[in-house]
């Protein structure tokens, strides 16, 4: 009797489990089909080209012969290459530091004013990020114009001599960094403002009771609380800035005498205009190590964040 009951109970249980497994299989099949377009796009248009460019970098100019590291050896012997490395690193690091500092400072100013007005100010401050960079760089190109330049007009009216903004390599580098900072700092401001809003007000009150001044509150309360977002945003921007193309291309096109080229613009000049695709691919591959390190750090940060939450 007991045995019969047990058997009766057991049979439905088995079928249910089988049914459940079939359901799970069907579910994961459907899930896979839903994700299939994404997998195809990423595989064909991102992963495959990225690997293919490594193959391309080992070919000769007409892409008929395998030359191993020949392209890299050729690049290492060229002065322009080292100039590009230096300029890319200098540009990316300086620009990211400036963007982070300006973003951090402006975020605090916006946070300080009454909540009612914040939306309006934030809205105005984000405009540089919204305008397509190619279009706003044209405006900067015009602001920098040597003979009719709006900047030089102000300088001459202040009794100073005009500056050859984009004709001199040092000023041109500074100009490129300035435009990039102008485009990018609103993004930092928005991210840091969001982080600032999540700092609990009690911590500031506690710090105030302990007699902390405003600088101490920022240094000992805000900065540690925002550390994660600060890091993610900076790393993220480092990738984008390092791979920047639009600003340099429009503002100086690498000139004067290749002194402001970054990896992306030089790869374009060599690969597309110079018709030496393998050499262009080799140049752009130099972006890879720094991107990989930054990506690994971002991933670690995001994982940490997930654990905290």
């Amino acid at each position: 009797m007991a045995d019969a009951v047990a058997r009766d109970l057991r049979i439905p249980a088995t079928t249910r489990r089988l049914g459940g497994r079939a359901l799970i299989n069907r579910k994961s099949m459907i899930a896979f089909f839903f994700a299939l377009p994404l997998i195809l796009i990423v595989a064909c248009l991102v992963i495959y080209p990225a690997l293919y460019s490594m193959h391309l970098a080992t070919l000769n100019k007409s892409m008929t012969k395998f030359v191993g590291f020949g392209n890299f050896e050729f690049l290492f012997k060229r002065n322009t290459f080292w100039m590009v490395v230096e300029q890319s690193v200098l540009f990316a690091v300086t620009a990211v530091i400036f963007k982070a500092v300006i973003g951090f400072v402006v975020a605090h100013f916006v946070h300080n004013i009454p909540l009612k007005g914040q939306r309006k100010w934030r809205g105005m401050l984000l405009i540089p990020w919204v305008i397509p960079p190619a279009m706003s760089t044209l405006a900067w190109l015009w602001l920098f114009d040597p003979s009719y330049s709006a900047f030089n007009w102000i300088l001459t009216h202040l009794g100073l001599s005009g500056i050859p903004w984009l004709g001199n390599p040092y000023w041109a580098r500074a100009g490129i960094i300035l435009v990039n900072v102008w485009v990018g700092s609103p993004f930092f401001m928005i991210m840091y403002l969001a982080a600032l809003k999540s700092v609990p007000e009690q911590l500031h009150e506690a710090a105030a009771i302990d007699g902390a001044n405003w600088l101490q509150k920022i240094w000992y309360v805000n900065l540690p609380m925002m550390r994660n977002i600060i890091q993610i945003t900076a790393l993220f921007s480092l990738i984008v800035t390092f791979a920047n193309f639009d600003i340099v291309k429009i503002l100086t096109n690498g000139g004067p005498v290749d002194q402001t080229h970054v990896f992306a613009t030089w790869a374009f000049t060599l690969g597309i205009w110079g018709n030496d695709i393998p050499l262009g691919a080799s140049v752009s591959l130099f972006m890879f190590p720094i991107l990989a390190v930054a990506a690994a750090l971002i991933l670690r940060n995001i994982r940490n964040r997930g654990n905290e939450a």
Partner: protein
Amino acid sequence: MTTATAQIGANQQSAVHYGSISRGRKRTLYWSYFFLILFVIFFLMPPVYMFITSLKTSAEIGAVTNPWWVYHPTLQNYIDLLTQAQFLTFFKNSALVAVIVVSVTMVVSILAAFSLARMKFWGSGTLATGVFLTYLIPESLLFIPLFKIFAFIHDLTGIELINHWWVLVFLYPTLTVPFCTWIMIGYFASIPKELDEAALIDGAGYLQILTRVFIPVALPGIIAATIFCFTVSWANFLYPLAFTTSADQLVLPVGIVTTLIKGDVYNWGQIMTGALLGAAPPLIIYAFLMDYYIAGLTAGATKG
């Protein structure tokens, strides 16, 4: 009783400190406004200057009068550009590319995000991380191999992909799909599981759960992703510059840069007008949907 006393004590204490805190706050407030005004001037100077120049004639620009002021405002530059067939072609190409890319991206990434965030299959966790990593691969690393691959496709099948505006429809998803999928995963993962379990018990299929439950609930996220997707496809400069050359196949940013700048002759009035018109669609969208735009910006790094 004790609470009441504590309350009163607290009130008194705050009343004592009220004056000095409020004075300190007021000073902070003034300084904040002062610096905010400075930064707004810095951030808005180029677009304002674009607008000023766009209202000038070439004669006025050439006369080197005060560059920050318009003495004889005219809309001639706008009229010239908007009646020029070539400029309208750029606009049309840009709009078509943006609309197609946005539609394709949103379908692909909503389906994929639903599958990765909710349904899960073997390897879906790795895939989600992989999507994030591919989002970090910039276009400046991909354009050369893609250029070569498209040339190969031409040799193999005879289909000429390069130098047609629609080639961009294949290129822009490399930028938009990973990001949109990533932020949609974040939005979908935040929807309570009870919601889709209830729908499942009521006999809904997965597609129904997606269209009847997830899409309506995650609508703000979808709007944010759509805005991002549109902005990226409208603004991209590298891909069209590398892949399209004929004047009738160009999109707006490249068209303005390559056709309005003729050799050494810069017609700045027209260039600035073109740039302003090119910046207008994203700016208009931003003006109306600012909160969604900002939500999309912050979601990329804070979700997930």
